[in-house]
């Protein structure tokens, strides 16, 4: 418990979290502070490239784990199953329509790569090692949740448009391609490659993350300011409860797989986090009648800040305790 609290305190006072808080505060105060769209996208390209590359280098250093395949499979299953749990929970806790509930559920099966990045940086500061291939697992967990949600909807007789174009858009969306591509580049070039570009991908990483989270805070705060009316008590409670449930599923899977304590923590983080880029885009195409205000506010305005501030230290503490790490 003490460990959790101290980790949480350190986490809360890191420049990374405070930058996010600054963004939220600026938005709520209606400041015109904003990060240009192109700059925000450039920062995310940097983060995806760096995290993928470093994951690949780490795999090249430690060799492929026999667990790689199993962990990928576990990720896919988690991503597919979590929406079912989320959907059931939403039916019980909220009065959302089946359509809105299915759309929200898709977000919670999928993942938030920034939450993952923030977690890796906490692990690093605490000196806790993790499997390099977890970035590949993150990529694998993006899409299956969408399929589950659409299946939920089709069962209830609602039509939806799931064409091959959309499949390509989801599976080859820029974030996945960049993350996986950088992972393979890191794997292929190894420590030598890392040496060449480490003053780009390693040294300034945390600082870039600060600015990116500043922007995330601005967007999340703006969403809360403008759309917080969708956050009825039941919906809000779901946004705080679901990540905890997700993390427990991730914990179970991680322990079964025998991952390192860092690996378990990251699988918990992935399961606990909710998408706010890939899945909303897919939902706009496939379920345009679902209300974006609900899923965006929940995912970006509630679950993301919860994971960033309290969730990550909690998951890390639980993972290290349970793995005896």
């Amino acid at each position: 418990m003490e460990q959790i609290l101290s980790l949480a305190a350190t986490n809360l006072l890191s420049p990374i979290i405070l930058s996010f808080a600054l963004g939220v505060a600026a938005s709520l105060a209606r400041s015109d502070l904003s990060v240009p769209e192109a700059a925000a996208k450039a920062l995310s390209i940097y983060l995806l490239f760096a995290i993928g590359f470093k994951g690949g280098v780490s795999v090249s250093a430690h060799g492929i784990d026999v667990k790689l395949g199993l962990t990928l499979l576990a990720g896919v299953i988690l991503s597919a199953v979590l929406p079912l749990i989320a959907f059931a929970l939403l039916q019980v806790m909220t009065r959302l329509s089946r359509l809105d509930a299915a759309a929200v559920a898709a977000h919670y099966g999928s993942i938030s790569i920034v939450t993952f990045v923030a977690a890796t940086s906490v692990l690093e500061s605490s000196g806790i090692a993790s499997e390099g291939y977890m970035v590949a697992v993150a990529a694998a967990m993006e899409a299956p949740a969408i399929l589950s949600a659409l299946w939920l909807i089709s069962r209830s007789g609602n039509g939806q448009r799931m064409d091959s174009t959309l499949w390509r858009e989801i599976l080859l969306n820029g974030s996945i391609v960049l993350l996986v591509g950088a992972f393979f580049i890191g794997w292929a070039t190894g420590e030598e490659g890392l040496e060449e570009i480490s003053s780009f991908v390693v040294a300034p990483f945390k600082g870039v993350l600060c600015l990116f989270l500043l922007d995330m805070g601005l967007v999340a705060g703006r969403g809360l300011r403008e759309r917080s009316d969708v956050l009825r008590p039941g919906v809000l409670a779901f946004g705080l409860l679901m990540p905890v449930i997700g993390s427990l599923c991730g914990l179970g899977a991680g322990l079964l797989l025998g991952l390192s304590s860092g690996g378990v923590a990251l699988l918990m983080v992935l399961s606990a986090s909710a998408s706010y880029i890939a899945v909303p885009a897919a939902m706009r195409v496939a379920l345009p009648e679902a209300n974006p205000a609900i899923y965006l506010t929940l995912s970006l305005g509630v679950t993301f800040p919860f994971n960033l501030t309290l969730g990550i230290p909690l998951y890390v503490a639980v993972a290290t305790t349970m793995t005896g790490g």
Partner: protein
Amino acid sequence: MQTHQAKRVEITIEAIMQSRLTEALLSADVTGFTVLPVLGGSGRSGAWTRAGEIGRASGMVQVICIVRPEKLDKLLDAAFDVVERHIGVVTIVDCEVLRAERF
């Protein structure tokens, strides 16, 4: 200078639907169009701005097609199919064009 009658159709639509719209246009034999960026807007589904978005889900674009009057109906049918279930606005204006052989 010699000008010719034409129709100018402007379709404001979610960016994520752009490729679907332009494919529908192509299949209706509309091969000419221009896409403008949109900074923000407001409508029945609320207000949004590009600065307040993460990712590409909710940004919008404006697609402009200039067509001969006789092609208008086919264009509108094709566009309507795409915008029907989505948010978006379609306007049609009478215009004149130079170099009519291009349309």
